[in-house]
């Protein structure tokens, strides 16, 4: 674990991998809830780091945090958020090809995986979901789509994710959900927050991959 300076009030804590970052984030949130971190403003987990901002004494925190014993990531205590998916994405066939299985087996693999939100970013409410085995990592599309519809379920690198709103995007789209990932008028606004457990369920039988719609 390394503590890197990030200005007058923040420390970027770097660990070896994503799982350790999630464990450190959980430990930070535990200590924050216990009042041990003071009035920090932001705790931002990411791929291999957690940023802590709003520290009264970042140098003291940096010296302290590298000595912490961070317990390994515990299974999610509460029930998982379930997202019903139609496996009809334009990249389903390509992903099936890469994984060396049928589209139905892609759906079975994805619905059979216990996911967890490692971190959010890209746009409000976009969660990077981990849980797939590393050998199923898929590259981003060579050329990103100019617009991906909201509710699109995609894969990129080791992550799965759902687009909260229409945006450009390079993830491999395997399906669609009607779940509302982000609603600023709802409390909480984000369906998925770091640490949330997620399960995908198949809404119906997996059909042939839909042909990409014209203009996309």
């Amino acid at each position, binding site marked *: 674990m390394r503590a*890197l*300076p*990030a*200005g*007058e*009030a*923040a420390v*970027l804590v*770097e660990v070896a991998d994503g799982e350790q970052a999630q464990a450190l984030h959980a430990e930070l949130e535990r200590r924050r809830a216990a009042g041990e971190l003071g009035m920090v*403003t*932001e*705790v*931002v*987990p*990411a*791929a*291999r*780091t*957690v*940023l802590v*901002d709003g520290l009264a*004494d*970042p*140098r003291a925190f940096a010296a302290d945090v590298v000595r912490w014993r961070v317990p390994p990531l515990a299974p999610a205590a509460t029930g998982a958020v379930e997202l019903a998916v139609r496996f009809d994405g334009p990249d389903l066939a390509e992903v099936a090809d890469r994984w060396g299985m049928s589209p139905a087996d892609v759906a079975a693999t994805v619905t059979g995986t216990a996911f967890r939100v490692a*971190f*959010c*970013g*890209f*746009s*409000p*409410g*976009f969660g990077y979901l981990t849980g797939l085995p590393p050998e199923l990592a898929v590259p981003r599309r060579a050329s990103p789509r100019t617009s991906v519809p909201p509710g699109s379920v995609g894969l990129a690198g080791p992550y799965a994710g759902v687009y909260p*709103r229409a945006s450009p995007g390079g993830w491999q789209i395997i399906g669609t959900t009607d779940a509302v990932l982000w609603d*600023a*008028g709802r409390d909480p*606004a*984000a369906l998925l*927050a*770091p640490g949330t457990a997620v399960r995908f369920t198949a809404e119906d039988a997996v059909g042939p991959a839909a042909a990409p719609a014209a203009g996309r």
Partner: protein
Amino acid sequence: MSGAVLTVERAGALTTVQDLGRPGYAHLGVPASGALVRAAHLLANRLVGNPGAAAGLETTVNGCAVRASCPVVVAVTGAACPVRVDGRPAAWGVPVRVPAGAVLDVGTAERGVRAYVAFAGGLDVPAVLGSRATDLLSGLGPAPLSDGARLPLGESRFGPPPYTGDVLPYGGIGAEVVLPLLPGPRADWFAPGAVGALARGRYTVSPASNRIGLRTLGPPVERLRHEELPSEGMVSGSVQVPPDGRPVVFLADHPTTGGYPVIGVVPAAALPAAAQAAPGTPLRFAPAVRTPR
């Protein structure tokens, strides 16, 4: 809600509703947003008797003009600019009474870029995650002003405050902007001496600057490591160096995570000067000597 509205007569280059922003949601991918020159926003609110968190307008370069359906006390702060009420010159940096139906015109900034306009009672647009601020990166909050748009005005509970003359207008806009630089998390991704080269480099403010970041033109900063940096959290003021080597200073609407190395961090107190620097303004980075806290 008072039922009173502002009608936008001239939206200007970019006028947004701003308040103190929505800090605390970076872990969900939500930028802090809020007024780029917080002190000017707070002063404008104080002048019209509002709490500091009340929403007002932030203009960019050429101001804006609005018509109020009822009498309202306003104050314009931030960038120095002409203020007119129905065409007659009015004072900048003090409370001004605008009669019902009259047009308040905030003119082109003479020094600085962004003016702040407070209305007694504040702008009563819906709050999103506790803030009425427009966030240009993620599209939260009201859309930037457009000609003919209408904005609800809140009720003023306190009435116009007495003018006491103790105003300290924001005046710190020099011919050159000097941004102090504190150590950043990825300084070791750059060539030895890159921070020194950054300090010696003569930069100017790029016209591509916005509420997301102050972009710069000048000598590229040389990177030592060229591999992909996995996404990581960034604070406001982070100076990120994209592949073209031109440093970007991130402001209030910045993404909450980024994938390019951050060489240093400009402290919050220096960011208003960055936000008020017009394109073409000379810019220098001044690495701070690290002192024990």
